[in-house]
């Protein structure tokens, strides 16, 4: 096997970055209509950069990637994916709280 070593510049997509909705489609395996529908449902922040040119906040990428996978792999529609996303996030928040309580409990019974 041929081995090649490269140094690659990494670009973190984070707060303050906006990505064209068309590019989002490629990254998240979603069609444009679905991306805009998810924005309308309040799942992600979007803005109309120029007439007809929509952009989505880069911070929304993880949510959109999950939405894309749910739609592609489970065959749910956009509303179903939005609902699943919100329920999954609520579940994670509850799990976080549970872990925090368990951590306190481990420290002793006098709390």
């Amino acid at each position: 096997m041929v081995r090649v070593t490269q140094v690659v510049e990494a670009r973190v997509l984070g707060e303050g970055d906006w990505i064209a909705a068309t590019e989002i489609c490629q990254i998240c395996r979603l069609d444009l209509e679905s991306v805009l529908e998810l924005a309308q449902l309040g799942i992600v922040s979007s803005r109309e950069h120029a007439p007809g040119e929509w952009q989505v906040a880069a911070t929304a990428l993880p949510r959109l990637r999950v939405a894309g996978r749910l739609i592609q792999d489970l065959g749910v529609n956009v509303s179903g994916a939005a609902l699943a996303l919100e329920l999954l996030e609520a579940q994670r928040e509850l799990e976080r709280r549970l872990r925090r309580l368990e951590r306190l409990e481990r420290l002793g019974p006098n709390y």
Partner: protein
Amino acid sequence: MEFRDYYKILGVERSASADQIKTAYRRLARKYHPDVSKEPNAEARFKEMQEAYEVLRDPEKRAAYDQLGSDWKSGQSFHPPPDWGRGFEFSGRPTGGGGGRQYYTGRGAGGAAGEEDFSDFFSSLFGGGSPFAGAAARGGGRDHHARIDITLEEAYRGTTRMLELKRPEVKPDGSVELRSHTVRVTIPAGVSEGQLIRLAGQGEPATGPGNAGDLYLETHILPDKVFALDNRDVTITLPVAPWEAALGASVMVPTLGGPVEMRIPAGAQSGQKLRLRGRGLPGSSPGDQYVQLKVVLPPADSPQAKALYEEMRSKLGFDPRATEVR
């Protein structure tokens, strides 16, 4: 390589209809989808199912797979027959067509691997270079995705990772060669859970006009023993003595950037949260660290300690339940 029984993986008969296969896949996908499943090995199971579905949903691939015969068992040693693919007509649809079903991952301390995770068995029958790969689409390459696990400390300080990416490339003579690229990636300080890191041009190579795809790394921050992470904020639980809470005290507190001195105000209570502004994960708006106090009582296990407790009881006249509504 080992034979894979795709029908068994999806739990269907060899005579199953396309609808039955789709239903079986969807049912299993709901159970094992890595985004929703709590099942052990969900990700591995899901990939296996995706691979099986990729073949059985496609009439051409399914027909060819069926030609191998029904005597094979999962795990049996397997090599493609020398005349593999002969006698079929193919639509030329690239492998993974229909939306690109790849689910990439890459875990472990060594970093991420960004290659498609279908088995060698699949690759030998339907991958690049096989008749089923068809005429590859001439154009730009697709984006690839991988997950990268980092510790909370690495997220705070930034880190460098060497990623080994294996990638099939078509040589001028048409044969396919697996090339291994080691990519050094600097992950800057302050990445948060689920954040994407883009490595331009590190996805699928272009097979015609157009650029190579990009590689996206999705960061996953591993749970920490001391700090609980919530977006950019971190929380720790700090045990304190009753007199530290009652009288106030200066104590050393661990933070992601190292220990700092923190003032506990007099009259603090167990469970109270104190904030260390800007001591969470860095960023344009850095997170905070929350310190949750936990008052720990000294044990009354000596005559001296017992005497002190007796003295508090007689002199303080304290009733912790005085204000409780019953």
